């Protein structure tokens, strides 16, 4: 792999979706750049790349953060969960399909990861809790009604 101006690369080990992973990248690369362009895991989306839209939300050591604002030096030895690490049959993903909570789909992975984290902390969240947990995730297609309905439905299951 060739990097522009890549005088410096470093072997970085971390756990990705439960699997020990090692990549040789510049430590100033973001986790988002590494996931998408080095590991070719394109489930995590790039929207604004500046922490405003929430599309690149992943869990690092179990908490939601922006992959675009996380340097590879910051994930060394840690555990990362991306949308690919969530079972396709998970009740949350089924609820998104059943409720039609996806339109263009670009915001969906980030929202699924943020909601997955919420459900792991609060199995039966209120609508207020769902709205708070997703306040950093933008959807520009339709609004949030179906998305919130889907998360609430997954919480009831």
């Amino acid at each position, binding site marked *: 792999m060739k990097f522009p101006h*890549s005088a410096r690369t470093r072997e970085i080990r971390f756990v990705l979706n439960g699997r020990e992973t090692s990549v040789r990248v*510049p430590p*100033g*690369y973001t986790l988002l750049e590494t996931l998408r362009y080095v590991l070719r895991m394109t489930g995590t989306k790039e929207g604004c790349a500046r922490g405003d839209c929430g599309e690149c939300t992943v869990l690092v050591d179990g908490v939601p953060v922006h992959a675009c604002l*996380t*340097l590879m030096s910051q994930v060394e030895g840690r555990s990362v969960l991306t949308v690919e690490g969530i079972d396709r049959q998970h009740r949350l993903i089924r609820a998104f399909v059943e409720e039609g909570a996806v339109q263009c789909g670009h915001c969906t992975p980030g929202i699924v990861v943020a909601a997955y984290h919420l459900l792991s902390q609060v199995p039966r969240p209120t609508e207020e809790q769902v709205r708070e947990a997703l306040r*950093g995730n933008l959807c520009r297609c339709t609004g949030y009604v179906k998305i919130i309905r889907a998360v609430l439905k997954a919480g009831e299951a």
Partner: protein
Amino acid sequence: MQHLADVEVYSVRTLREALELLSSVKGLRVIAGGTDLIVQLKTGVVPKTNLLDVSRVDELRYVRFEDGILRIGALTTFMEIYRSELVRRHAPLLAEAAFTVGSFQIMNKGTIGGNIVNASPAADSLPPLYVLNAELKIVGPRGERFVRIQDFYKGYKKLDLMADELVAEVRIRPPGEGYVGHFFKHGLRRGDAIAVVNGAVLLMLSPEGIVRDARVALGAVAPTVVRSPSSERVLVGSRLSPEVMWRAAEAVVNDISPIDDVRGSAAYRRELSVNYVFMTLYRIARETGVVA
């Protein structure tokens, strides 16, 4: 936007290692959560430099209450601060501000030390720290020293901090019985936004509703966060009536110097400052039963 592939990142796990590197390697910029710095580096707002990544220095992540002082490690995240029972009990203003800093994703990563050193005049943690008379513990090769938060800022992004020093801890002496206060913020989006105006009001009221002590701080309306002595003078010694609250709110314009920028005009910021200070005073008056 540029990538940071050509930037060297030094990663450390202890405060000692961090200080050693800062002394031996010139031109390092310290990165903690990186929620603002990474954007600034990528957009060229600050020049690309090699980085010292202190985000894993776990010894600087804590909230403790010892000898009557609330101590918050510089690398404590806003989520940790918001959830801390100690912060809620001893500095509830700061817990309120921590919740508005940004989305949960930002709260999970952004640190109080990063917010302080990043020195944005719109930093949400600062107005509470100003009215709480917080003190910073600064460590460096010459030992440790303490600086009052308002003395730490010498001008727009000018800090009382040497290149080989780090902010290690925030100290707050709880104001004590009878003090009531709130944080306020006007952003362009509730979920995740930089403040157009923010601030904090902390009052000490006598049982009759007379203001014994008043501290008003505003952010995003001057090169640094500012206290408003004009407003405080109107309040101290007066009963918290609607008329006094309006006069105190209007007095803040004497102490601020807002500018026009992408988030709002100077005139809009002046209006917001007056209205938010009034609303916050009114909220305190209602909560304490001074007005119905």
